[in-house]
């Protein structure tokens, strides 16, 4: 009986052995959280004071004020225009750049610079790109449009290149065997294979650009973001609430249209 118990204990010890490595990782994790919280000067008092201020803040946000709806509509329309133009141009530019970055169709000398450009466009947040354009070419929707074009290339061209790298080369060879030119190969052999995925990336990017176009205004890139930021600065919190509600409504409509587009091109 005792022997049996000892065996069971041994099995138990092996099956549920304490994982010291994981425990050390968790300990390090907790230590990090405490250290970082201290570094950033988080204190409970600040949090409590903030909660108090948050309550008054929320109180001043309601009811939302839609009286200045003309200003609101103007900003929203400008954001929409920024989103549409930057998506159209960005997606069109992504086609050649993505093609140049596809390693199965292009020589290394071409793919490396194309990939470097895409990585550069992808690494910076659209807002940072927008500030640079605002500083370079001045305030207004043009800066926002250029920034979002750049950001769109970073996303769509990368995924497009990856989609091209995954295609079946049999069809490409078949088209090539007929003596087709390079453009013929691309249009008849490559594009049909990636078109539906491309539509997917494009609608996703349209959706994402619509979100970002409401934000580039915060740094002066045109659109509703500028209106939002100045309303914040003037402590016009009921107008802020109205703007936020309309932005969210616009984004949700955009999401619906994007999902409907994807269904149409399935």
């Amino acid at each position, binding site marked *: 009986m005792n022997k049996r118990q000892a065996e069971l204990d041994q099995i138990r010890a092996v099956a549920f052995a304490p994982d010291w490595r994981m425990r050390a990782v968790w300990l390090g994790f907790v230590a990090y959280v405490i250290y970082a919280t201290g570094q950033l000067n988080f204190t409970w008092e600040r949090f409590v004071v903030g909660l108090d201020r948050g309550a008054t803040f929320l109180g001043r946000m309601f009811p939302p004020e839609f009286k200045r709806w003309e200003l609101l509509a103007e900003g929203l329309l400008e954001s929409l225009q920024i989103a549409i133009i930057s998506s*159209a141009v960005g997606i069109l530019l992504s086609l050649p750049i993505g093609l140049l970055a596809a390693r199965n169709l292009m020589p290394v000398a071409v793919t490396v610079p194309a990939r470097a450009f895409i990585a550069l466009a992808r690494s910076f947040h659209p807002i940072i790109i927008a500030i640079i354009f605002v500083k370079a*070419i001045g305030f207004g929707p043009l800066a926002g449009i250029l920034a979002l074009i750049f950001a769109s290339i970073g996303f769509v061209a990368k995924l497009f290149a990856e989609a091209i790298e995954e295609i079946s080369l049999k069809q490409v060879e078949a088209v090539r065997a007929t003596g087709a030119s390079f453009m013929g190969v691309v249009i008849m052999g490559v594009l049909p294979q990636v078109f539906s995925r491309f539509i997917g990336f494009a609608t996703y990017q349209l959706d994402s650009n619509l979100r970002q176009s409401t934000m580039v205004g915060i740094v002066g890139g045109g659109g509703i973001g500028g209106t939002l930021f100045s309303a914040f600065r003037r402590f016009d919190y009921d107008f802020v609430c109205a703007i936020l509600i309309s932005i969210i409504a616009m984004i949700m409509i955009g999401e619906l249209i994007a999902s409907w587009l994807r269904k149409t091109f399935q």
Partner: protein
Amino acid sequence: MSVTTNSPPSGPNWQRFTPAQRLARYAVYLVAVMALVWSVRNVSIIPEFLYDAHNQMADLLTRMWPPDLSYYPTTVHGALIETLHIATLGTILSIVMAVPIGLMAARNIVPFRVVNEFAKLILVASRSVNSLVWALLFVAIFGPGALAGTIAIAFRSIGFVGKLFAEAVEEASPGPVEALTAAGASWPALLLKGYWPQVQPAFWSIALFRWDINVRESAVLGLVGAGGIGLVLDTAMNFFQWTRVATILLAIFTVVVLAEILVTQIRKRLI
């Protein structure tokens, strides 16, 4: 069966799409072109600005060169570390909040539709508000600084983490859970031993992915006063210190690339 004429082959006329599908596609193309034309005609762009844009960009880039690297150790390094802290703590906080909401949204955990829909509403609300707007809100509440940035990052990430986590939980196989139920396991034991081992890889992958995104996002929060390297960037820009701006941009670029490499490496090991 020899084809001797050039006339089209008889038999059914194969077409890839139904007329309704084709009509829908053409309608989409038409609307897209119309939207583009409307936008181009109505957007308030000063054409001279557009024609001059490449000159202005080139001018700015020449003023940025060479980057003022001596600025890095004094100011940029500290701000960069703060940015990383904001991203990491924000991600952790968001996971703490997103896991219960994600569980509430998963239909196989909570069998009440009302609760599911309510949790999904929270997730959608979190995703619909941009991180900069969250940051503006929390700067107004907690005052400028890293606390506002961290909470903004956390609130922004709840939607993303919660949605993907809920989907991972819903995809979990019911077999082990049923076995545990049959053995009389308690509810926490079901979650911990039935679901957790199944969703663990997805969970780590989601957390790492979101951390990567948050490193990028936390770099801009400073522009609205929520701490991190964005604040230093904003100051340098307002004083037109372009060589310093170049240093900061280089630092952000390096950190973002390193974060991406780190995440890919960890994912390879973990999953």
